[in-house]
């Protein structure tokens, strides 16, 4: 199954997605995995929160 990924693989792809555009097959595989997994969507939320937090931290560092 070329679209089957386990949690470890999905975790890595979610993290790498912050710094590169994933190939379409990977993006689709991640999306499919999120439908059948309870843990990985929470991880994806954590990564999203970290992205917003890093942005806020950068702004905070530049302001008086």
């Amino acid at each position, binding site marked *: 199954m070329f679209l089957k990924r386990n949690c470890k693989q999905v975790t890595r792809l979610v993290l790498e997605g912050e710094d590169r555009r994933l190939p379409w097959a990977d993006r689709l595989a991640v999306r499919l995995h999120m439908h059948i997994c309870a*843990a990985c969507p929470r991880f994806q939320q954590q990564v999203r929160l970290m992205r917003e937090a890093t942005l806020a931290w950068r702004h905070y560092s530049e302001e008086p």
Partner: protein
Amino acid sequence: MLSPSSAWPMISDDPARKNSPDLASQLEALRPQLLKFARLQLRNSAWAEDAVSETLLAAWERPQNFAASSQLKTWLIGILKHKLVDQIRRNCREMSTTSEDNEDVLDDLFDQTGHWIDAPQDWGQPEAVLRQVDFMRVLEACVEHLPGQQGRLFMMREWLELETDEICKELSISPTNLWVLLHRARMRLRDCLQLNWFSTPAVDPARSR
């Protein structure tokens, strides 16, 4: 040279002759903050000191570039970012990975079949967390605790806001290598935040100032 006493003789060819004693003390007061970010970026005290000195000197020599409408700190951070890129170019050969950078942090979190050993926790809504100054301090401490090269790369990406291909060029590393080190850095940050922020009781009014 930034102390008011030595900088104030009115020498006619001194480009900074119109600077007020006020600017000197303001620059000096912001030095520790600049140094903190320079250290976070370069992970080397000597290089960080150089970048901050160059920043303050540039500000001192060209105060006319500082638009009165903006904030002094914002202006200085902007100069510092350029000086940090200069330092990275100058010292890139000495910026390399250590064994700590090369540890695969994902291995400990998953079982043989690639399933989570401890499922990720719900961190809640970002808005609730992001307005807490203490959370920013924890995040900063977690960035500081990244292994050296991971810390530099993370800061280049998130604080200097460089594109991945620029980072690869400056440090002569392959894109694959960069992605691996960045995903490790992000995973370490996540583990650090989990341990130092989200594992403690969430409802603590004393913390939400």
